[in-house]
């Protein structure tokens, strides 16, 4: 006879409500874990997207994500000709705001050269950029759909394809345009401002600049040698893919990551206290029944089993509800919520541990109960 299950069924409504409350708490914990992972994944997504081996940026900067970087667009040809380089592409990044369907969209515009490194790895819907102007690929989170048009700067662009999980470390969804369009977008001003500049005599042509040049190396090529060679050019610097990722995590998202990490720690501590309190209260309410069980000869393992089983059922039910809820609502979050099976596994381990420790308090109280209390005075 399983006393734990019988007791739960007796007060099922109350137990379900408790599980639901715990489940909501677990949802918040899982959301924080997901947001934490999402922050890192978002930050790395933009770095990983070009699938590059080496990033060539402006000397003295840690660009283009940690710091602004501006190098001549012609650098791409110089890098492409270097020994060991399979292909290279120039790339630009800028954040702009655009109006669409009555709302202001904040977009992370990535300019790349179609056919060269720098574009998205996979197009989820539609096609890639086929024309050299006025087409864009948009992340799904922008809300744009294939075939729609949107005005960026002074030009109207047509959405020809959709990509997924492309955004900057701030969570702004990305759009991909051709490098030519991106350069125009960088320099184009509205006609009135351009006329003022021209009247001041600032009409000269400037060479186009890009944020970085990304290079993919031939098999067996030495990344360290290439970056060392690039650094010999006084106006350029080079970072390997690994260095770029580390730099981004260490400088751009580190503070936010630590903030969320600390909050997650506090949330887990609160959850542990809440679970402990629930289990302890559940046990204290049963002391008279426990005394009766002890008096009629129930061994300690029956009492311990009753408390520990209920604690574990409570914890696992709460976690299951939390997991179900977070998977239902995670796509509604404005920022990406990334949950890996590993996270669920670790949280399951933590919750089981908390339940066992918390039930230890209840078990201690239960084992101290004098069976004589069942007899009365």
């Amino acid at each position, binding site marked *: *006879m399983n*006393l734990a299950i*019988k007791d739960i069924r007796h007060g099922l409504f109350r137990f379900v409500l408790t599980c639901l409350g715990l489940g909501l708490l677990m949802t918040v914990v899982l959301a924080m874990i997901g947001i934490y992972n999402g922050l890192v994944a978002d930050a790395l997504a933009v770095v990983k997207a070009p699938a590059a081996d080496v990033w060539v940026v402006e000397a003295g900067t840690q660009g283009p994500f940690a710091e602004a970087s501006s190098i001549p667009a012609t650098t791409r040809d110089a890098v492409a000709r270097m020994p060991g380089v399979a292909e290279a592409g120039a790339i630009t990044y800028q954040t702009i705001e655009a109006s669409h369907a009555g709302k202001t969209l904040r977009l992370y515009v990535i300019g790349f050269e179609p056919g060269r490194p720098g574009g998205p790895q996979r197009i989820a819907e539609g096609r890639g950029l086929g024309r050299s102007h006025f087409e864009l690929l948009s992340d799904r989170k922008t809300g744009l759909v294939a075939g729609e048009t949107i005005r960026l700067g002074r030009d109207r662009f047509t959405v020809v394809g959709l990509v997924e999980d492309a955004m900057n470390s701030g969570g702004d969804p990305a759009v991909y345009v051709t490098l030519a369009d991106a350069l125009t977008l960088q320099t184009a001003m509205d006609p009135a401002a351009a006329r003022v500049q021209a009247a001041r005599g600032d009409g000269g042509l400037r060479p186009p600049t890009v944020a970085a040049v990304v290079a993919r190396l031939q098999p067996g090529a030495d990344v360290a040698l290439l970056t060392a060679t690039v650094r010999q050019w006084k106006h350029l610097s080079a970072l390997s893919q690994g260095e770029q990722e580390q730099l981004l995590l260490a400088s751009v998202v580190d503070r936010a990551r630590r903030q969320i990490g600390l909050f997650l720690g506090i949330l887990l501590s609160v959850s542990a206290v809440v679970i402990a309190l629930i289990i302890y209260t559940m046990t204290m309410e049963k002391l008279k029944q426990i005394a009766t069980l002890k008096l009629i000869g129930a*061994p300690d393992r029956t009492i311990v089993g009753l408390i520990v089983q209920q604690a574990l059922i409570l914890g696992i039910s709460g976690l299951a509800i939390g997991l179900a809820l977070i998977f239902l609502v995670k796509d509604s979050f404005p920022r990406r919520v990334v949950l890996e099976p590993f996270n669920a596994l670790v949280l399951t381990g933590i919750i089981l541990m908390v339940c066992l420790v918390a039930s230890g308090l209840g078990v201690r109280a239960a084992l101290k109960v004098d069976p004589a209390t*069942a007899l009365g005075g």
Partner: protein
Amino acid sequence: MASGDILVDVRGVAKHYGEGETRVDALRSVDLRVHVGEVIALLGPSGSGKTTLLNVIGCILAPTAGRVELDGDAVFDGKWLRSDLRRLRLDKIGFIFQAHNLLPFLTAEENVSVVLDLAGWPAERGRERARELLDYLEVGHRAKVKPALLSGGEAQRVAIARALANRPRIILADEPTAALDSGRAQLVMDLLRKLASDQKACIIAVTHDEKIFDRFDRLIHLRDGRLVDS
């Protein structure tokens, strides 16, 4: 009666709490023998030591001095572990409480069979025995009902069934009729007398209910921890 008929043999049992000025002597050199089939009542004012004596016989409380033999086994002789005493309670002692103390999350049948489950009986045999006892106590029709829906008399009969489930030879009752009206109290006592006779058990009950005094074989009076007469 032959010594083999003695189920409870208490000799020179004393129990005190605290030391020095705070010392309270709950029991002072108590001698008591209860034989097979006997139904005895422990009487006395509050604080006279009735419950302490019941707890000592029930292996809940160890005496400070003296010797206790239950169904031939000398307990509290230093060789008995807490788990041994628990097993002894399960096998040889049945408890009937003032408030029936049924487990609210179990049905009447389960409240009886839980004892047999703890004693290691197969589940089906335990259920059969529970139904048999509930039928015998005329509450078989309420077997699937939880305690909250039982009347006071029904709940007390289920509690008696639980106390008898593992065929104990010593039944300890704490105010078994306190929650019952006069008529039902007489019926319960008649039932306990019959059970003691049928199961070759003895019954020791703490009671203040004068209306049932005639149902006991002996009335044991306690005052200030001593037996006054019997």
